[in-house]
């Protein structure tokens, strides 16, 4: 056994640190500190995307031929660790982690040529049009339809939970092209090269945290080119499954989670316990922190075993295991954040949360983000396949790895 990253990677780590310490603008750093969601504040994060692109580091997971870094899994872990340690905003995932890798696998040469450069450079932002009001966990029940008409499709229907659709200029979506047979059949995967087609209407939805992160998108006879279809007509379900593989096989979550725990520890040293003294010295807090630390550590260990290529990585339930573990750890951490913030978590401070608003928060920066993060993170066990669905999947793969 060997617990270390390849020692040659220390030089790499230093190179990463040097850039991350100097390149981000104040607005980018502010956006990082005010990130209360998987989706960091849009404008500043896209600015950071473009700076990383200029450095050649926008796509750690992409192969070099498409402008990626060609980094190993270990390098990517190191980059992620250092990125999180500095509270920088994570790049928005839909292009880089979802549709980009999908196009590399299944896109036509023309689709790759047309879309990959804009994803890489941060010129374009893609929203995901999957869920519908009646098709959530049961995604295959979707009914938003596309009717072939010449070289086009005509789309009618509605999508919902289209994250940041109001900021996006591109959209990938699933549409129903056939109503016969099993509901997983008759679904087609489409790329929309604009989000302002005539007949498209985007309505932002205010979330629990007071922020418009999600949207509804309505389609009223929207005519889009068939050239945007990925894979064959009616075979979009398998395209979506291929995309899911990329989404879930993506970056490690533990550096982000570790960072939240570090923020909690730091805040606890400044906070006062209910019964007096620094919260960090309160035995009850210490016990609960100890439990969180143990859980975070075990999650890191799982991810590092997977990263190292341990047999655990081949467990067919691993994507679901990781999703449940990471989402529920995030939720536990978010509760602990509100607990450490105490009553300073109770003011509603939407303006102070906006990047560049210049509004001073009532409490400290940690308390400012605690409750919005808690509220936003309630969704972590709902989106991307609810945790109930994930547990169903895990329960179908109960064998344990012996090696």
């Amino acid at each position, binding site marked *: 056994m060997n617990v270390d990253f390849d020692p040659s990677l220390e030089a790499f780590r230093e190179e990463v640190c040097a850039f991350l310490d100097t390149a981000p603008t104040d607005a980018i750093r502010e956006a990082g500190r005010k990130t209360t969601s998987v989706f960091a504040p849009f404008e500043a994060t896209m600015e950071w995307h473009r700076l990383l692109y200029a450095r050649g580091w926008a796509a750690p997971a992409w192969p070099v031929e498409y402008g990626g870094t060609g980094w190993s899994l270990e390098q990517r872990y190191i980059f992620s660790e250092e990125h999180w340690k500095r509270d920088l905003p994570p790049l928005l995932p839909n292009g880089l982690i979802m549709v980009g890798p999908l196009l590399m696998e299944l896109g036509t040469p023309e689709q790759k040529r047309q879309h990959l450069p804009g994803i890489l450079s941060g010129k374009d932002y893609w929203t995901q049009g999957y869920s519908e009001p009646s098709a959530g966990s049961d995604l295959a029940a979707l009914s938003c339809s596309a009717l072939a008409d010449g070289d086009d499709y005509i789309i009618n229907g509605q999508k919902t*939970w289209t994250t940041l659709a109001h900021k996006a200029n591109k959209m990938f979506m699933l549409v129903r092209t056939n109503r016969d047979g099993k509901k997983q059949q008759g679904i087609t995967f489409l790329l929309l090269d604009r989000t302002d087609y005539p007949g498209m209407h985007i309505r932002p939805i205010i979330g629990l945290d007071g922020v418009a992160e999600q949207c509804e998108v309505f389609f009223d006879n929207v005519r889009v080119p068939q050239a945007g279809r990925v894979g064959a007509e009616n075979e979009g379900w398998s395209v979506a499954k291929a995309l899911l593989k990329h989404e879930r096989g993506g970056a490690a979550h533990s550096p982000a989670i570790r960072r939240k725990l570090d923020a909690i520890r730091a805040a606890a040293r400044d906070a006062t316990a209910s019964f007096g003294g620094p919260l960090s010295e309160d035995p009850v807090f210490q016990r609960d922190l100890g439990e969180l630390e143990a859980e975070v550590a075990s999650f890191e260990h799982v991810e590092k075993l997977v990263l190292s290529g341990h047999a655990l990585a081949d467990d067919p339930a691993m994507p679901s295991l990781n999703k449940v573990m990471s989402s529920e750890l995030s939720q536990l951490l978010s509760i602990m954040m509100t607990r450490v913030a105490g009553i300073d978590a109770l003011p509603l401070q939407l303006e102070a949360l906006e990047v560049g608003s210049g509004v001073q928060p009532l409490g400290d920066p940690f308390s400012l983000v605690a409750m919005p993060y808690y509220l936003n993170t*309630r969704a972590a066990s*709902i989106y991307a396949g609810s945790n*109930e669905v994930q*547990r169903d999947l895990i329960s179908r793969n109960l064998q344990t790895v012996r090696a």
Partner: protein
Amino acid sequence: MNFEFSDEQVMLRDSLSRMLDQRYAFESRRRIMAGQAETGIWSELVDMGIVAMPLPEACGGLGGSASDIVAISELFGRHLVIEPLLPSVILTGRALARFDPAGPVPRWIADIGTGALRGAFAHEEGSGTGASSTLSTKLYEGEAGPRIRGSKKLVLGGGEAGVLLISALSETKAVCLAAVPADAEGIEVRRYRALDGRPVADILFHDVAVDRAAIMAGADAALEALLADARLALAAEAVGAMAVLMATTADFAGTREQFGRPIGSFQAIAHRLADMKIAYVKARASLLYIAALADSGRATSRDISVLKAQVGRLGREIAQGAVQIHGGIGMTDELPVGHYLKHILTIDGLFGNTDYHLREIGRVVASA
């Protein structure tokens, strides 16, 4: 033993429910809170006798008991009512009624009872516990009489109040209560809203002069009673909120279909709903039992802590379950679900959260 509301209480609850159903439905409330609609709710509450209810009869009130307060507050919680009954009447009004009736105090009480004046209780200084041991606001003898110096946070209704009831320590470290007009010189108010939309304020007292007749020295017992009232009323609000979450989530799970059947027919959802019901039954039983104890004057601070801790813990369990079962739609500002969650979380944070009260209980019980 009898834990049912009395016939009078049931009648009052029925008419209050009817009024709130009509005037304070979720969409109306949204417009009221956005400042898009005039609210006449407060004056209706005055007309119904609800504003005067918590005050002693000797002060022109209706001599409301603990269970009266619970009976009303539970309905406030069901409708997410943010009218200032709690800060103005249940806290400030009832506490002022324990002062010597001298100086401006009787007039303030009378005006609070008619709804003409609003009071607020400026107590919190940051610990979140409500414990008097955490006070650092000073009541001291200035050159021209007593003055108050200190800062208070998260004062419910503090921005709209005409009179402020302040907790402070005297120069001998005795717990005092003092009341001042909100427009007195040296008072600096920063208004904002709490998570659940309640108007609150941080208030600084820069050596504010206090009428000696508006001071209660040796106010430990009065403060304890005040905190018990606050916790009981808030707990009732929380239980009211839980009832709505329970009912709407059960309904939703029975009608929302995924995979061709109601999601409530999936055992994972069904059992989570069962756990929510267990939580609700426990919370409501404790509310009614401890209200009855309080009616007989025998609710100890341990009992009140049990209630506050249980509604905090069980309320969170129910509210988080409600959001999860609603799925994406439960994450939006458009549905009431999230507002109830935020209401329950806000209540948990006021006058001692779950964790604080559990430790208080443990401290008392372990050595008993």
